[in-house]
């Protein structure tokens, strides 16, 4: 039964990684009603930045690379917010989707200029390279680390939203932006702040995945679909929903690979279709008028 432990660890680490990226997207949607396709670009930039910093060998530099990935994404996010997103606050979803898709296209070409069109791989840091035996199975330490980061991000977001003045303002700004502005808060910077946090999380997610899969152009488009599915299943704007959605998708992937190999990839889309057929606003979402 040792494969069960491996399956659980694999599922949870995949879910944790998806959650980190999805939490950023859903946080931005929840706070600003902005749907951002370029979130996939931030993720890809995070991953590529790791490969750059790790250029030669691994070592303590991995931690630096992880941080660099997230920071690169955050800087990209800041640029995008100031130049594009600010014009989209009151726009329709179609406008938001198209404008941020345009940003994704632009970032894709710039990314190819910087990192080329080939794929890259990196190794996990030596501390996390080996496996650890749990219940007879050799679970990769790196997977446990990713699960830990996912949990930490979830906790941090909960604390931020529920316990800090920033989170309090954020929730107020969704309900009634004018009152918040009248109360002396710089709404523009509040929104920029949220967007940068969202981009940071996308970059962190991309940086985290770097040692687990090959990094290549096109990962921006594929992650955005997965993340859209996760946040829609959970309910747009709900961080807890993103966690739930990530777990469901992680589970669907593992079960699919185990039992219906040739239909494995279909299972995550079917999951979303079934969830939305039953609850058209997602598991933890609120019905939109």
């Amino acid at each position, binding site marked *: 039964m040792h494969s069960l432990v491996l399956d659980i660890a694999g599922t949870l680490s995949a879910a944790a990684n998806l959650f980190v990226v999805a939490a950023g997207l859903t946080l931005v949607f929840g706070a600003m009603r902005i749907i951002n396709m370029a979130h996939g670009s931030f993720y890809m930039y995070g991953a590529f930045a790791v490969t750059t910093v790790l250029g030669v060998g691994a070592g303590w530099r991995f931690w630096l690379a992880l941080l660099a990935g997230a920071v690169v994404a955050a800087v990209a996010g800041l640029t995008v917010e100031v130049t594009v997103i600010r014009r989209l606050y009151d726009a329709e979803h179609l406008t938001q989707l198209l404008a941020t898709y345009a*940003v994704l296209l632009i970032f894709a070409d710039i990314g*190819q200029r910087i990192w080329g069109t080939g794929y890259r791989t990196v190794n996990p840091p030596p501390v996390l390279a080996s496996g650890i035996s749990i219940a007879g199975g050799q679970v990769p330490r790196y997977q446990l680390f990713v699960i830990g980061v996912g949990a930490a991000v979830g906790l941090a977001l909960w604390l931020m939203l529920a316990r800090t003045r920033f989170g309090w303002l954020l929730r107020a700004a969704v309900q009634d932006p004018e009152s918040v502005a009248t109360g002396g808060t710089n709404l523009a910077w509040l929104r920029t702040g949220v967007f940068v946090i969202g981009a940071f999380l996308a970059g962190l997610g991309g940086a985290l995945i770097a040692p687990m899969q090959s990094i290549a152009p096109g990962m921006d488009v594929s992650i955005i679909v997965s993340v859209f599915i996760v946040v829609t299943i959970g309910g747009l704007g709900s961080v807890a929903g993103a966690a739930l959605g990530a777990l469901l998708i992680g589970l669907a992937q593992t079960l699919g690979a185990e039992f219906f190999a040739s239909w494995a990839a279909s299972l995550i*889309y079917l999951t979303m279709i079934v969830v939305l057929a039953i609850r058209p606003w997602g598991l933890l979402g609120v019905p939109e008028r």
Partner: protein
Amino acid sequence: MHTDSLASSAEHDQVHLARPPARTTAGTVACVVVMGLLALAGVVWSPAALANLQEALGLVLFAVATNLLLGYGGLVSFAQAAFYGIGAYGVAIGWLHWKLPFWLGGLAGIAAAAVAAVIVGVISLRTRRLYFALLTLAFTQLFFVIADNQTAITNGATGIFGAMVPAWLAEPQGGYYFTLVVVVVVTLACYAFVRSPFGLTLKAIRDNRERAEALGVNVYRHQLAAFVISSIGCAIAGFLFAIYSQSASPDLLSWTNSGEPIFMAVLGGMHTFLGPVAGAIVYFYAQSYLTQHITDWQLVLGLLLLVIVLFKPSGLAGIGADAGRAVRRLRARTGGRA
């Protein structure tokens, strides 16, 4: 609004402007002239240029059919590529497995797309706005994955290639004229559709869903019918693609391929009937030029899309309408006839 003609509907949003009836005739004349030129092109142009134009015409239909939902229904659907792909696969799978006559395969593909649209629509239209867009995206991905993985039926990622089209249609001229006729006929049918009471109801739902409901309109059924009609148009466009390329592959069903007709419609002006036509033509030729001459063509395309979405949401049709107004104002000032 109901007075707009095929050509002058570019000013859809300018209902308050009294429109001289003469322009309607001018617009119709312009359309007939363009049609005449397109017919002439079949004789005059080189086979290579005709092949390009044939592909562009297929995209025109794809954009017009998608815009039935987007512009007239206010529904952002990412599922249109799935129906386009199914239309193409009908010909290809029928030919590969059952040696079906070409026409039968084509009809089967279009019928299959309509059935798929009923299923996708019944489930997706229960959701609203962004959820609708993302759910249709999930459906497209589902169809894509099926086309990609069910190798026994679809040949998987390789796709299906071969002489699946009658010889006369594979000829540049035969294929071109056939495509031209189909695109013109189906586009006119779409025009009749948006002008019909049904089409007007669809617009009313787009503009104010609650009010339409209060007036006793069954919103869900209207949107479902529009969804299926649009999917049939997209499937016919896919069928034309199969004629043009003699192939079908999973890429046709990818969600980014659903984004293309949306981009074309927005580029041309999605609140006009002819906007998507212009958008498809400009997009096709601009893209084929850019991919040949620039490596960073996505960058240019992205910047173009960004500028239009942010600064000129009414697209080429809006620019055209602005120019038309400027000309009229100038004429009025110089004392010429308006």
